[in-house]
């Protein structure tokens, strides 16, 4: 095979030009692995080098990178994740989405660390990979079909029930700006519109069967380490809950602390929460426990509805985020309806978070009288009407009618297009909808949303130890010196430290190929030390913790540079008014607002970024070996290129002014 010096990597990647229908197999540059590890680390490196500021995300010049990391495919617990990276059609800046399932490892076993898609196919195609055999095939017969059908059709066509598929549904084809990529088995790389990029390139699917081996530098130590880490996860106090309920178990935990966003973030708790809790889900709808690749936790599960209006619904990996976005965020407390919505989003290829947020936005602007009767198209947009939610999901995916087409743009763009003061009700940062956390109830999450490199997102920093307060975990990670403030959700002290550490470590996790929900954050049995040991044992790279920390920081800084290239500054590291001005009306957080500015000051200091502009300094970037990025960025700012890019991002800035409505 390849002469790549490190084990764990396949050592080669695919560059697929869809315009010219050419496929090149190229050796993986050593520098990519050494400095950026894999996954979204290599992804941002490629975006920085190859996709300049003036590229429209929906144009052929944008590139989609589908990338595994070195741990992906190994028996290290939860090491089956892969990343999709591109300039985001939702935000116009850096975008990525991560998925579990069983697709990533198959790509690795087929012999490829990553695929770069460039250009645009004149007709719908899919990429078929069976080890060395790689070809673009016509996908006209698949165009228009849902993701479940598409996956089944490809498996039938190739007479291969083990074919792993990543595909888009109608939402991606119709360029809904938050279209997901669905991967076998029904897992979603959903955020930032990576499915939209596939749609814009006429790329319907990627189908992989890999039969090769993953070389391990030290097989015996690897096996012992993987087993030890798995046992430690199993013995962790959080194991039972995650194993039994998955992320839906969080509903009942977030409710009392006022961190369960309700009615478009107006409230932090939902009186119908018990109806859509993890406990209700398991008790009434569980069909089977299933798991992603190499995952001992198994938060993935199959659920069904066996009676009532939504009888026949079969859906899997229902997440906390979805129960919130399509449940309490729109005030729906009918669990079968939420399961139906989840099934629909997966089949249509929609991000449940942004879909729910867009619908919540529509319901709120309707309530405020910002839509006229004609525009509402005979839909009852009152809160909690799940028939409307389900109808709108379909209309959005096909861009049907005024509302379908409007909401397909996402709340932040829709608000800009509408005007009328609608921007006050688009709950987003940098164009991406805020996920199911409330910075008023957990200060660190407010900061995390504001500084995330892909627009609002809890998963970049994933600061979980102050959620409900986990002092033992905090001491294990950081020592005693930061207590008690660090674990107090309402305190701002040390939260910048927590967020920076999480962002750097998260960049490493997303680049290595393991999972943020399974043992790296919530139960940090695999933290810096263990992660470095796993990478070293697997690849044979010399990986002291300090080097791994520098890699994480380098990746996060380059993402920031890429966003700054598009004109993003401190002014964009913000939160909508509701979080910073209106005291939380419920739960433990009652009376609290998010003190974002205090935490931001700390954050820029810790990052070594300019406090006024929020831009990385020459000193910081030089230390990380990114001195050239500094020069290129400054040149783009000086030439006006960044300002031009910023003016074409397309979304209304989050509303931060004063508002009459007290909620």
């Amino acid at each position, binding site marked *: 095979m390849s002469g790549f010096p490190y084990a764990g990597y396949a050592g080669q990647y695919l560059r697929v030009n869809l315009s010219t229908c050419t496929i090149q197999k190229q050796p993986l540059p050593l520098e990519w692995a050494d400095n950026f590890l894999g996954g979204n680390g290599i992804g941002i490196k490629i975006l920085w080098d190859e996709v300049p500021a003036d590229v429209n995300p929906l144009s052929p010049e944008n590139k989609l990178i589908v990338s595994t990391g070195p741990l992906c*495919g*190994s*028996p290290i617990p939860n090491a089956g994740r892969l990343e999709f990276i591109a300039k985001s059609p939702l935000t116009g800046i850096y975008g990525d989405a991560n998925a579990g399932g*069983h697709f990533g490892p198959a790509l690795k*076993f087929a012999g490829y660390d990553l695929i770069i898609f460039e250009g645009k196919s004149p007709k719908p195609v899919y990429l078929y990979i069976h080890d060395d055999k790689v070809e673009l095939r016509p996908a006209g017969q698949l165009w228009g079909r849902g993701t479940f059908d598409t*996956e*089944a059709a490809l*498996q039938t066509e190739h007479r291969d*029930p083990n074919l792993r598929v990543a595909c888009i549904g109608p939402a991606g084809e119709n360029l809904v700006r938050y279209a997901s990529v669905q991967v076998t*088995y*029904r897992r979603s790389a959903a955020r930032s519109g990576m499915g939209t990029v596939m749609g814009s390139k006429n790329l319907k699917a990627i189908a992989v069967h890999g*039969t*090769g*081996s*993953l*070389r*391990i530098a030290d*097989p015996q130590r*690897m*096996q012992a380490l*993987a*087993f030890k880490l*798995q046992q430690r996860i*199993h013995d962790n106090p959080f194991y039972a809950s995650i*194993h039994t309920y998955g992320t839906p178990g969080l509903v009942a935990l977030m409710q009392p602390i006022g961190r369960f966003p309700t009615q478009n973030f107006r409230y932090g708790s939902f009186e119908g929460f018990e109806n859509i809790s993890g406990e209700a889900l398991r008790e009434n709808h569980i*069909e*089977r*426990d*299933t*798991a*992603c*690749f*190499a*995952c*001992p*936790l*198994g938060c*993935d599960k*199959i659920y069904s509805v066996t009676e009532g209006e939504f009888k026949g619904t*079969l859906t*899997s990996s229902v997440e906390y985020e979805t129960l919130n976005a399509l449940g309490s965020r729109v005030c729906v407390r009918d669990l079968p309806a939420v399961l139906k919505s989840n099934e629909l989003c997966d089949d249509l290829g929609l991000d449940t978070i942004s879909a729910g947020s867009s619908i919540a936005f529509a319901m709120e602007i309707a309530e405020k009288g910002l839509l006229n009767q004609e525009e509402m198209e005979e839909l009852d947009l009152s809160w909690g009407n799940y028939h409307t939610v389900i109808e709108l999901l379909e209309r959005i995916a096909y861009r049907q009618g005024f509302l379908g087409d409007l909401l397909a743009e996402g709340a932040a763009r829709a608000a800009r297009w509408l005007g009328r003061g609608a921007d006050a009700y688009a709950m987003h940062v940098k164009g991406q909808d805020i996920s199911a956390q409330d910075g008023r109830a957990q200060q660190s999450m407010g900061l995390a949303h504001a500084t995330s490199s892909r627009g609002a997102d809890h998963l970049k920093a994933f600061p979980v130890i102050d959620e409900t307060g986990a002092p033992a975990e905090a001491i294990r990670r950081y020592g005693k010196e930061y207590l008690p403030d660090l674990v107090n959700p309402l305190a701002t002290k040390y939260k910048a430290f927590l967020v920076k550490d999480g962002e750097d470590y998260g960049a490493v996790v997303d680049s290595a190929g393991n999972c943020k929900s399974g043992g790296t954050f919530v139960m940090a049995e695999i933290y810096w030390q263990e992660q470095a040991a796993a990478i070293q044992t697997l690849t044979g790279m010399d990986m002291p913790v300090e080097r791994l920390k520098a890699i994480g920081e380098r990746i996060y800084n380059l993402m920031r540079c890429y966003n700054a290239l598009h004109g993003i500054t401190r002014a964009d590291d913000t939160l909508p008014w509701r979080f910073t001005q209106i005291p939380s009306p419920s739960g433990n957080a009652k009376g609290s607002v998010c003190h974002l500015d205090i935490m931001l000051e700390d954050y820029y200091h810790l990052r070594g970024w300019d406090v006024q502009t929020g831009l990385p300094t020459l000193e910081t970037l030089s230390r990380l070996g990114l001195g050239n990025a500094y020069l290129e960025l400054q040149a783009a700012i000086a030439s006006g290129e960044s300002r031009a890019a910023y003016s074409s991002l397309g979304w209304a800035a989050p509303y931060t002014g004063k508002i009459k409505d007290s909620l």
Partner: protein
Amino acid sequence: MILDIFPEKCTGCLLCELHCSLAHEGCVNPELSRIHILADRNRRTLIPIACIPCEDKPCIPACPEPGAIQLNAQGKVEITEGLCTACAKCAHACQIGAIRIHRLPGRGKNGKAVALKCDQCKGDPWCSKVCPTAAIIRVDDLTESQTTFERLLTTHHLLVRMEK
């Protein structure tokens, strides 16, 4: 010792396959695992398949090569790779599909291919150690083997019916 397998507990995480290939081949490759997780398209049925071993052991008389597959002193069915011609008769004789033929250069009697099956890791099987849901466990009561075999066979038939 036998392996006892409970298909309804399997989550399809494949940790057994990964550790099996790592222990036996020194690399990670689910295809080369001696245990395989079969699944229908939606994973509503999952079934770990490995040699239990069963009571009848039809694979042994099916083999035309003396000594290529035999019962060892611990009661396990073992393949001697150097004697195996990869004729696949043992694989066909096994009703649950616990033996697979692999094209592997340099392996087997003719240096091209070989039959691979579970050898129970010298009494401490990795699959049962790493299975997070105890879908695969080691049991010392050999009388359980027929029950396990029938359980796997039933689930296997169910899976085949579903695929059709």
